[in-house]
């Protein structure tokens, strides 16, 4: 068969876990120009946040900086913090689009989200 199939062309992973007792789903899709990561406790997209790693001379000394923008949903400070924090765990330079629908945003929840996301990494 010469025709390529969708699941071979678009690399995607998904999973779920209880984080602080809340069922949390994750779907990670690796597009050629962007990562798309859904982390949801409502079975919906919720807030969409685009994160880009700022291009600076990488000398290994400085922490990378990120630009975040909310495309849809409540533009709350913690949304930017969470998206930035999750992006810092992803060693890619392409933009990342997050869909975040969270019931809680405590530090322990955020740590759980990081672990869940990295466990189901598709990058």
């Amino acid at each position, binding site marked *: 068969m010469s025709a390529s199939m969708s699941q071979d*062309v*678009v690399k995607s992973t998904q999973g779920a876990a*209880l984080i602080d007792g809340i*069922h949390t789903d994750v779907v990670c899709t690796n597009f050629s120009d*962007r990562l798309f990561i859904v982390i949801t406790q409502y079975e*919906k997209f919720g807030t969409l946040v685009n994160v880009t790693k700022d291009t600076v001379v990488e000398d290994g000394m400085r922490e990378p900086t990120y630009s975040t923008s909310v495309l*849809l949903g409540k533009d709350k400070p913690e949304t930017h913090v969470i998206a930035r924090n999750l992006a810092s765990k992803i060693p890619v330079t392409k933009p990342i*689009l997050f869909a975040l629908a969270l019931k809680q945003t405590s530090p*322990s929840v955020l740590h759980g989200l990081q672990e869940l996301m990295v*466990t189901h990494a598709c990058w």
Partner: protein
Amino acid sequence: MTDDSGYAAKLEKTLQPLECRLKMHSFSDELAETQIHFQVLRMEQSFFVWIGISPPRFQNFAVAVQNRFDRQPLGSSLMGDLTDPSSSSLAYKLAKKTKKQVFVSCNVTSEASLLPLVEKRLFEEMKAFPDNF
């Protein structure tokens, strides 16, 4: 969690894997001599459709939702070229048809003649597998 010991205990705990409640449905078809790929993510009262070629790009993003006060859905382009209406018009049609919130990323804009075929193919799939949308 403000207590330090409790926080540390949480960090050590590894997560128990569960079944993901979002359903991914993929299909491909050759339309006008181009291999077109579709990916549908079904969620609670909403779904996301990605349409593209290989290599898979994610350039456009639009949303549309049908509300009970209006006969026409409300749509918005979230990302990408705002002068390219392919994602938003498709989201609009899907929202009207399904009464759900619909997210669309349509990345096959190089040929305008392809879009009606893509739309037709997508609607066929919806008819054949309604549970995936």
